[in-house]
């Protein structure tokens, strides 16, 4: 059993008057992949975005409850959101490389955080990040071409490389494969499997097969509530809750 990395207690999220999450309590273990599944609009992405305070960007969004990362409370005005986010990388549904070269995309994080001193160090980080994201071989001859010139799957791996370049502890992935074809998806899934040796990963996915393939633990959300959580194998073979059973067997959702 691994250590708990992120712990949430009674997290409520309101968009204006509408409540999107109801008292979600979930522990996320270190160096494991935790999958969040559930029908559209059930609040799994909202929950994911609470962990790196991305919901701050939405004016009408109010988060209360308690979330700790490494036993430190993050739902508080005193928290330095910028340094929190540098510890928690995020990969989005649609690949969103910056309008810069491939090299500059990956170098972006290390540069703004002042992680590197010399140009050689920066190159070192960019190369190793691209390598860990399994992209180096494909792009090493064209590092100075725009990131947007890559294919969708490559762009998504570039975004992963960009996220791991700042050496985060946690990587949040919001349906990272939903815009990709099956082959690119398989590549990303392999990558996730490899990355979990070093990072804590939380992945929101619509594909139950994907959750089953890549995750060790799974949480099932329904209508803003965390219905059931447990080891992936158990959730998919012997769920306790009736709704979970219904969803994974495809009876609703």
């Amino acid at each position, binding site marked *: 059993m691994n250590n708990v990395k992120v712990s949430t207690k009674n997290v409520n999220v309101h968009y204006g008057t509408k409540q999107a999450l109801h008292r979600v309590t979930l522990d996320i273990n270190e160096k494991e992949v935790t999958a969040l599944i559930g029908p559209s609009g059930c609040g799994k992405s909202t929950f994911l975005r609470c962990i*790196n305070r*991305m919901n701050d*960007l939405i*004016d009408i969004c109010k988060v209360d409850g308690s979330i700790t990362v490494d036993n430190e409370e993050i739902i508080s005005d005193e928290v330095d959101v*910028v*340094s*929190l*986010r*540098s*510890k*928690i*990388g*995020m990969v*989005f549904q*649609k690949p*969103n*490389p*910056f*309008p*810069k070269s491939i090299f500059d995309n990956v170098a*972006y*994080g290390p540069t*703004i*955080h002042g992680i590197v001193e010399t140009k050689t160090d920066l190159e070192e980080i960019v190369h190793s990040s691209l390598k860990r994201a399994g992209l180096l071989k494909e792009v090493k001859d064209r590092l100075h071409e*725009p990131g*947007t010139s890559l294919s969708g799957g490559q762009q998504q791996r570039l*975004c992963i490389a*960009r*996220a791991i370049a*700042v050496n985060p502890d946690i990587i949040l992935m919001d349906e990272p494969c939903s815009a990709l074809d099956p082959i690119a998806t398989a590549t990303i899934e392999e990558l996730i499997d490899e990355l979990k040796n070093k990072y804590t990963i939380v992945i929101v996915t619509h594909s139950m097969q994907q959750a089953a393939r890549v995750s060790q633990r799974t949480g099932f959300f329904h209508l803003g509530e965390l219905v059931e959580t447990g080891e992936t194998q158990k959730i998919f073979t012997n769920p306790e809750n009736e709704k979970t059973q219904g969803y994974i067997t495809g009876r609703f959702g």
Partner: protein
Amino acid sequence: MFYWSLIIILLGIYSAYIFGKSRITSHSRQLEIKTASLPTYYAQYIMVWCLLPALIVYFGWIIFEDQIIQNLVLANFDFDLNPALNASLLISEIKNVALSDSFAEGKATEILNAAEHYASIKYVSSISFYLSILIVMILGVMFASRKLQPSFPAQQSIENYVKYFLFFCSSVAVLTTVGIVFSLLFESLRFFSDVSVFEFLFGTKWYPYIPIREGQSGSQGSFGAVPIFAGTFLIMIVAMCVATPIGLFTAIYLAEYASPRVRRIIKPLLEILAGVPTIVYGFFAFVTVAPFVKTFGQSLGIDASPTSALAAGLVMGIMIIPFISSLSDDVINSVPQSLREGSLGIGANKAETIKRVILPAALPGIVGAFLLGVSRAIGETMIVVVAAGTAPNLTANPFENVTTVTVQIVIALIGDQEFDDPRTLSAFALGLVLFVITLILNIFALRIVKKYRERYE
């Protein structure tokens, strides 16, 4: 006379429409065949064929009628015998006499006869005008009604006509531009037959006065336009130095930092600023800013004139702010939210995100906004007339009087001027240069925008 013809045309196309519709409906009922298109399209088809010939005749008549009548009337006068007769003076005299009896008193008999002749031709002409419009409309409808068969795909034809019509509309702007270029070009050529191109482009003295009589004391006219271009450039630089940073920072504030409430207030206010007439800016510059600039210059130990390039440039910069801020604001807003989230998700703060991600992504649009501002600055007249003076000084000192291309064009064209005076014609040469500069600027802007598009999209 032309109002009535418009009414005739309107009634004509209306009845053509009704005719077409009833005709095709009864036709298809008789033959018991369903029409290939809805009856409306057949009616529209007939209508087009009724309207087009009528319009051609209408505009042809307007353009050529006067000339033809004049030629017919003047054919009676023998200009070789009497070289003192001036054709254009003569015809206006004849017209005046024909219009009103009060002009007829004391005129030569041949003029009176010609006036009568003119009036009768005019009468015949207007009758035949109505008749020919009616006839071509009927001919058009008759020609088109051969196609009123249920099997005829009227909708496709209408679709084609719509296409031609739209093409025509889009070519209006292009053709107008071409026309402007040519008129500028020809008038400029006349100017350059008096003044050498070299003197105009590289001469440093602008003194556009030609002596009225031989041996007149005072200097010879001199058409070196460099001081004017320099003045334009100087004021443009001052204006853009004000407008670009303020406009861009306003846009960044509005797009990224302002709360929706603040934004709702500031944005319309800025747009009001864009609607203020430039002459109002002009007297603001003259009354408020220019004295301030003078005092400021004196405090620096510079002898500033009461109107100066700096005063005009500063106010012009204020005038351009809304253009830059409003356009840049739109561009920044259209940068996808996913890029912001991507950057913030890595732990970049807001300023870093804006500086390193948003602005580069928005750059093509911002460059576009900047160049639009530049062309506004170059084309602006009123502020400069009022606040920068009209003296063509060749100087880089913004505290001095300068003048711009547009101001000199205004000066050249107002007042009693003959059109073959180089002073008047210089307006066209200046206009041509202005046109070429803005054209180059636009091409340049488009290339920049395209280059970034290719790289980033």
